[in-house]
C-alpha cells in the first residue's frame, strides 16, 4: 500500500523539553514537499524523529502504511528512509570511498560497485579524490559526498536537511538544480530549508513550522511570487 509519509499529531522533544507540539504532515508517494521555518522552529527535530534518532512522545509516523515512529535508524535505512543530514556530516577522518562504503553498510558489495560507478559518473571530482580524507574536501565537495551517500543508499523516502547551510548561494542553487537528476522521479522527498525561495522552486507543496507548530500549509505556486507573505509566516509577524 503506497501511501507515502504520514505524520499525525506528532509530539517529540529532548528530555522534558517538548519541541514539536502535535504536527500533522503528509507527503504522497513521489511527491516533493518542503518543510520551512526559521532557525530553531523544530524542522530538524522532525527529520531526526522520522529517521529514528529521536523517539516520539506521542502521535504516529507511518511510511507506506507501516508505523515507523521510534524504529531503529538501521531498520529505517533498510526500508529506504534515508536522510542527508544538516551540515553534511561526512566522516572527516575517513577517506571519500570509505564514506561511500558506509552508505552501503550491511548490503552486498555488488550494490556498492554499482553505486560507486553511478556516483563517480555524476561527481568525477569524488573519484579523483577517493583516497583523500573527507575532512579535507571543500564544503561543496562535502555536500556532493553527502548526497552521494544518499544515492548509494537507494532511498524510497529521502529527507534532506538544510542543504544551503554554510554553502555559497550559487553552489546551493546548483545542487537544487541537480536534485531531479540525482534521484529518480518516484523518490518521495521531504526537504527542510530556511531558504524558501530555493525550496519552492523544487517542491510542489510546503509546510511552515514555527516554535514547533504548523502555521501554514500550501501549494508552492501560491507563494512563488510573494516571498514577503512567507516571511511573516516564518516569524509570526503580520
Amino acid at each position: 500500500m503506497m501511501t507515502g509519509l504520514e505524520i499525525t499529531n506528532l509530539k517529540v522533544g529532548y528530555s522534558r523539553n517538548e519541541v514539536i507540539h502535535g504536527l500533522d504532515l503528509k507527503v504522497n508517494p513521489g511527491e516533493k514537499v518542503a518543510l520551512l521555518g526559521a532557525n530553531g522552529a523544530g524542522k530538524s527535530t522532525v527529520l531526526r524523529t522520522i529517521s529514528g534518532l529521536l523517539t516520539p512522545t506521542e502521535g504516529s509516523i507511518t511510511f507506506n502504511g507501516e508505523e515507523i515512529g521510534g524504529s531503529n535508524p538501521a531498520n529505517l535505512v533498510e526500508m529506504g528512509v534515508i536522510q542527508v543530514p544538516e551540515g553534511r556530516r561526512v566522516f572527516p577522518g575517513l577517506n571519500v570511498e570509505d564514506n561511500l562504503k558506509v552508505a552501503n553498510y550491511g548490503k552486498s558489495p555488488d550494490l556498492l560497485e554499482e553505486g560507486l560507478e553511478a556516483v563517480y559518473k555524476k561527481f568525477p571530482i569524488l573519484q579523483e579524490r577517493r583516497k583523500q580524507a573527507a575532512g579535507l574536501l571543500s564544503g561543496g565537495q562535502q555536500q556532493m559526498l553527502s548526497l552521494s551517500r544518499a544515492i548509494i543508499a537507494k532511498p524510497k523516502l529521502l529527507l534532506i536537511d538544510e542543504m544551503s547551510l554554510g554553502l555559497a548561494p550559487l553552489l546551493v542553487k546548483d545542487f537544487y538544480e541537480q536534485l531531479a537528476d540525482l534521484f529518480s522521479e518516484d523518490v518521495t522527498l521531504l526537504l527542510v530549508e530556511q531558504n524558501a525561495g530555493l525550496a519552492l522552486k523544487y517542491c510542489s507543496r510546503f509546510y511552515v513550522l514555527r516554535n514547533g507548530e504548523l502555521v501554514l500549509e500550501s501549494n508552492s505556486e501560491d507563494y512563488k511570487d510573494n516571498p514577503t507573505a512567507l516571511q511573516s509566516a516564518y516569524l509570526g509577524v503580520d
Partner: protein
Amino acid sequence: MVDYIQIAWQGLVSGFAYALIGLALVMVYKTARILNFAAGTMAGISGFLAHWWAAENDMPFAIAIIFAMIMTAVGTYVIERLTVRPLIKLGDFLPIVIMTLGVEELLANVSLLWWGGSAQRYRVPGDIDRINWLIGDFRLNAWHVVVAGTTFVTLSIVGYVINQTELGLGMKAFAEDQDAAKLMGVKESTVSIWTWVLSALVGGVTGIVYAPVLFLQQDYMNIIFIKGFVAAILGGFLSLSGGVAGGLLLGELEAFTIKWAPREFAAALPVVIVFIVLLIRPHGLFTREKGHERV
C-alpha cells in the same frame, strides 16, 4: 653500548602491555565514548581462566587459552548486554563509567572468591618463561619473544579488523560521528557489542601473555590498566595507533628514567613527563586538534 639496547628491550617488554591495554581502552572510548574501568580486571580474569583450564582441568595449554578467550568473549557479551546497553539509551557518560567501576568491583570479588588472594604461577609449556638466551652481551628471555610476537599478531589482527572489514568501517564511522553513522544504517548495538568483545579479547590476550611475567594475582592487571590509561592519554585517547605508540613510549620512559633519575624521583618521572606533555599538547602526542569531531 649493548646496555642501552638491553634497557630499550626491557622498556619494550613493559611497553607492549601498556600499548595493548591502551589500545583496548581507546577502542571502546573512541567508538562508544565509554571509559571502561573494568578493562584491567577483565584482562586479569582471562589470565586466570587460561590458568584454571590448564592447571586445574588438565587441558592442553593452547586449548586452555582458546577456552579462556571464548569465555572472555561470551562474558563480555553478557556484561555489555546487561550493564552497558541499558544505560547507553540514557545517553549520559557518567552513569556508564560508574557502571564499569561497579563491574570492576564485582569481577574483582568474583576473582578473589574463585582463585583466592595469593599470587599463583602460570605455567607455560617447557617452562620457557625461565629460558634465557645470551646473544653476544644481549640477554633475551624466551617468553619475552612470545610476548613480542603475540603483541605483533594482536596488533595486526586489530588493524585488519579495523581497516579491512565492514565491522571496522562501522566502528570508524561510529567513532567519527555517531548520528551520521546511524543514519547510514550502522547499527549501534552491533558496533557497540563487537567493539567491547574485540577490546576484551585484546585485553584477554594481554592478561594471558603477561601472567608468567607478573604472576597471577587478583589485581595483577590493574597496574597495567593504569599504565595503559596513561598510554591512551599520551596518545590522545582518540587514536588507536596513538594509544599503542603511547604505551611503547611509556615503557621506554620508565626503563630509561629509573637508571638516570635521582632515587626519589625515578618512579614518578614518567608520570611527570606525561603531565608536561599534556600541558603542552592537551590533545595528546598523536592526535591533531579536532576541528570537526563534534558538530
